[in-house]
């Protein structure tokens, strides 16, 4: 059994955490070939070769693959699919864009956001915003899968995989990249951070979100937000934790001014330790929190920031 894994490569650099977590999930299915795609991807390929569990690396470099647009990337993966039983990727926004397209090109169903591998055909995945876990058995000859990274530990380093070059076909030029607007930040990436501090509607304004950010910076944490906070314009959408945003599972999750709507819980309830700070003692967030503090966040959060570290 052979597995083709689409490594997460952004502007030529390997996103090691997301890729290594998907490798852990993929190893259970067979020998893993990591595919690094981009306008430049050789450096990412050399990095991927060191991940424990990667048997081989394929590097596909072409100008058309820069920014990993869905159409040429999916066409490339489909052209390589013949040699593999499983075609997998970490469930990043890039992979969620590309992999269903790959599946349709191969006339198979995609299996999105897999949180558990039962066997080569059978997988667990959350549905209904994580309110139910479905076990599905695929009848397709090839399985196209994205793995929910928060459900798997990252594979270690120490591998010495061989690196080969993949042949890239001509692009149809259906789409072109215009620009990226990436928020520059020294903070860790939300889905791989060890600590996440999130604010909700209770924070009240974009201005007041600074107290959330101050606590996060004191802890070396990533900043998250509830959908309510994002909808209210207090925080950017890529901070959103929940069913419609990112799924995180850090060592410590601090929820500030977040009531704990089902859709938010879906994105953070696998965190190891959850702290909730909310002035409403009836807030549902307290039902999942390991430590709850019923307090005015505008007093408690600055005090916590001061007393930590």
């Amino acid at each position: 059994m052979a597995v083709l894994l689409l490594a997460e490569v952004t502007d030529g650099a390997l996103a090691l955490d997301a890729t290594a977590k998907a490798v852990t999930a993929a190893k259970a299915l067979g020998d893993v070939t990591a595919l690094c795609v981009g306008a430049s991807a050789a450096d990412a390929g050399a990095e991927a070769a060191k991940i424990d569990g990667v048997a081989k690396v394929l590097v596909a470099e072409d100008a058309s693959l820069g920014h990993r647009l869905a159409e040429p990337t999916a066409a490339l993966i489909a052209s390589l699919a013949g040699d593999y039983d499983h075609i997998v990727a970490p469930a990043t926004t890039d992979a969620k864009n590309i992999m269903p397209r790959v599946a349709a090109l191969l006339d198979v169903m995609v299996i999105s956001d897999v949180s558990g591998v039962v066997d080569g055909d059978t997988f667990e995945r959350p549905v209904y915003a994580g309110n139910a876990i479905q076990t599905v058995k695929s009848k397709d000859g090839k399985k196209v899968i994205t793995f929910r990274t928060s459900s798997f530990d990252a594979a270690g380093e120490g591998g010495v995989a061989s690196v080969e070059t993949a042949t890239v076909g001509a692009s149809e030029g259906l789409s072109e990249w215009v620009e990226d607007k990436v928020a520059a930040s020294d903070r860790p990436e939300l889905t791989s951070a060890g600590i996440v501090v999130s604010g909700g509607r209770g924070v009240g304004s974009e201005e007041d979100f600074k107290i959330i950010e101050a606590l996060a910076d004191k802890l070396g944490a990533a900043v998250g937000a509830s959908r309510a906070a994002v909808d209210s314009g207090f925080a950017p959408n890529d901070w959103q934790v929940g069913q419609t945003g990112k799924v995180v599972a850090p060592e410590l999750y601090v929820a500030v001014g977040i009531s704990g709507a089902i859709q938010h819980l879906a994105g953070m309830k696998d965190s190891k330790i959850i702290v909730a700070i909310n002035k409403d003692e009836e807030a549902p967030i307290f039902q999942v929190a390991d430590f709850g503090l019923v307090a005015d966040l505008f007093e408690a959060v600055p005090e916590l920031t001061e007393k930590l570290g």
Partner: protein
Amino acid sequence: MKVLVPVKRVIDYNVKVRVKADGSGVDLANVKMSMNPFDEIAVEEAIRLKEAGKAEEVVVVSIGVKQAQETLRTALAMGADRAILVVAADDVHTDIEPLAVAKILKGVIDEEQPGLVIAGKQAIDNDMNATGQMLSALLGWSQATFASEVDIDGDTAVVTREVDGGLQTIKVKMPTIVTADLRLNEPRYASLPNIMKAKKKPLDEKTAADYGVDVSPRLEIVKTTEPEARQAGEIVGSVDELVAKLKEKGVV
């Protein structure tokens, strides 16, 4: 230009989901059903294109059980012009997989020849996030998923997408498939007069067989279970106590 919007009937997002005790699925009997929230955003975007003079007609399509015509009537009340219901299941518990949905939609598109398809990025029941991408592959069209801004200009569209770490802007060739993310727009509520008017708007009924599509699932659902429940912990009395607890756990 004609805009086609697929809409799905799903459990209302405010309803607490109950997993059936026998593990066969989620209980949908006598549960409030509504239009998938992302599809509402897609319908809204299509109507705004029409209002802006960039589209002439908005056609909504739903694939599933007969009751999905209620969902289509909602879209018509919002302002869509015409609806197509493709009956592909009898039981409300039968979920038609995105691959089969995409194949049926391809059949509809071959007949209707829209210049643009706007779909929701994900249905909140199966959370697959796949139909738009699959449809785009089957048609050989460009795709612009997770859109937060769409600007149509002749035979191209410039679309801003919500991606990990921020926003990406791409330019795609028309016809294209856009999938709607949360911040694309805020859908309107249908007014009572428009709800009344929607009852008279055309709604064609078809079947999956009309498009020659086999809807039998590729994924067999072995079981559906409740996720592991988290236990509530303790309420601490002060920030000092919280800091002490976190230090004790070794997380700070």
